[in-house]
């Protein structure tokens, strides 16, 4: 592993441990109550939840069939909370790649090393990607374990497909934050812009299905490519995931180009 990647991961170690533990605690807590929900279909079944308006249901995470294993997992983990936690984690890590050290002034000595600017961006990004992958792998292992323990009856491959989406979505928003940091050098801007995009994209995906006037926005919204394929039920949405991956590549390329051209720490 390249030295700067290793060193950046070492800097991330504490946050990575924190996020992994936090996300796993959240998952354990919510997945362990599944048996009590499955045992009460008349309270949580489709008929009981049908009284909520469609748009509201969407905003609350579908509430679709939460008495079934896949429905419960989708609603509790992959609809809102999973993306939320993963995205916040990714953005915070990504902001520490360029914008935060630039603001603090610690990037100056990194730039004085015999490393090209492009390489600094790429290696720092790689550390974000690997860090996020660690969180993803551990939480995936936990979800599959819990799925087996509480008899959710969801195939491991489907969980893997859904978790891969989580990873790609979070990495995309993280890469956006990194790119804005590489372009502007301002962590507040990077944080606000990438957070804004994530929230807007979630809202669009939830509401646009019911509001025709904005339905075209779905096509540029990252959440569409994360959620529309419904991987827990339908398996790998390969095309959508490739689009997420392509968007990551484009943002990374933009970050490299922008950082290579500008003054640092002014």
């Amino acid at each position, binding site marked *: 592993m390249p030295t700067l990647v290793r060193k950046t991961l070492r*800097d991330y170690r504490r946050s990575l441990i924190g996020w992994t533990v936090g996300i796993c605690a959240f998952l354990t807590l919510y997945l362990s109550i599944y048996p009590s929900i499955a045992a009460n279909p008349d309270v949580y079944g489709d008929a009981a939840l049908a009284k909520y308006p469609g748009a509201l249901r969407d905003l609350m995470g579908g509430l679709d069939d939460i008495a079934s294993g896949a429905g419960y997992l989708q609603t509790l983990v992959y609809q809102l909370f999973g993306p939320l936690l993963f995205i916040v984690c990714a953005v915070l890590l990504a902001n520490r790649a360029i914008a935060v050290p630039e603001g603090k002034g610690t990037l100056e000595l990194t730039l004085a090393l*015999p490393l090209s600017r492009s390489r600094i961006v790429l290696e720092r990004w790689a550390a974000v990607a690997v860090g996020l992958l660690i969180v993803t792998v551990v939480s995936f292992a936990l979800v599959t374990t819990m799925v087996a323990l509480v008899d959710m009856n969801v195939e491991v491959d489907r969980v893997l497909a859904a978790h891969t989406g989580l990873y790609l979505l979070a990495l995309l928003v993280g890469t956006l934050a990194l790119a804005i940091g590489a372009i502007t050098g301002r962590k507040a801007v990077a944080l606000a812009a990438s957070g804004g995009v994530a929230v807007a994209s979630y809202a669009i995906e939830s509401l646009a299905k019911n509001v025709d006037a904005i339905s075209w926005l779905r096509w540029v919204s990252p959440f569409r490519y994360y959620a529309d394929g419904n991987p827990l039920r339908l398996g790998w949405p390969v095309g959508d995931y490739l689009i997420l991956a392509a968007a990551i590549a484009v943002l990374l390329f933009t970050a490299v180009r922008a950082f290579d051209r500008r003054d640092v720490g002014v």
Partner: protein
Amino acid sequence: MTAVIEAEGLSKFYGRRRGLENLTLTVAAGEVFGYLGPNGAGKTTTIRLLLDVIRPTRGRIRILGKDPRDHRVRARIGYLPGELSLEGTERAREYLEFLAQVRGSGRSQIPVLAERLEADLSVSMGKLSKGNKQKVGLIQAFMHNPDLLVLDEPTSGLDPLVQQEFLAMVREARNAGRTVLMSSHVLAEVEHVSDRVGVVRGGRLVAVEGVAALREKAIRRVEFHFDAPVPPEAFEGLPGVRDLRVEGTAVRCTIDGRPDALIKAAARFTVVHMVSEEPDLEEIFLAYYSEEEDHAYAGA
């Protein structure tokens, strides 16, 4: 001699704010160059341009014969930033080892330099005192024995003993044929190690002068005491001798430039005691360049 730093018509504007304007400067291999100027003069701007942290608005730089954008050249440069920022929970030693690893050299020098500067490397970086941060900064600048050292206010925050040790390190670097550019606010900090000094003010280089030449320009007060009264005529009209006062066995005067003629005149008598004040180069230097620049030297 080959040039290690070559700047030609170098200008840097931050938006409309002037950082540096039209700097032309050459620093030769093996030279120690003192880069002086008051606050906001443009020292840090120049240095960050050399390291390719910021890019020039106009002008050209060659460093160690290369374009500063060529990242490989930085393996041969030791850089101490003016606003050194070291943060985090990592121990200073681990950070230095990381730098050594990226550069591919210098690891073995870490404990050696730490001992010389009395730096405690077991402390986490965020908890280092200002002086200790500066020491870590110096260690990382010197540890890979770079051909060129670019040091922005290297002595800031160091106590006098450590400053002396640092100056010794600079002398050793020069003796080993390395080149040094160091910035400072005051000449006194750099005059004992510098071969040449340059002054920037308001973004412009206003003077460059050899330290030896400055010494020659120096006015110094000299006193001779002899074993018997001496005739005033013996000292009158000597080149460079001014304000001559001969009182019995004592001769007092100021000399401007070389003391040679005075010493030879005095040598004809029996000298029992002699006092020569160390000239204040700073004073001369400031006088010298405020003549060139008409406006008064108000700052610093």
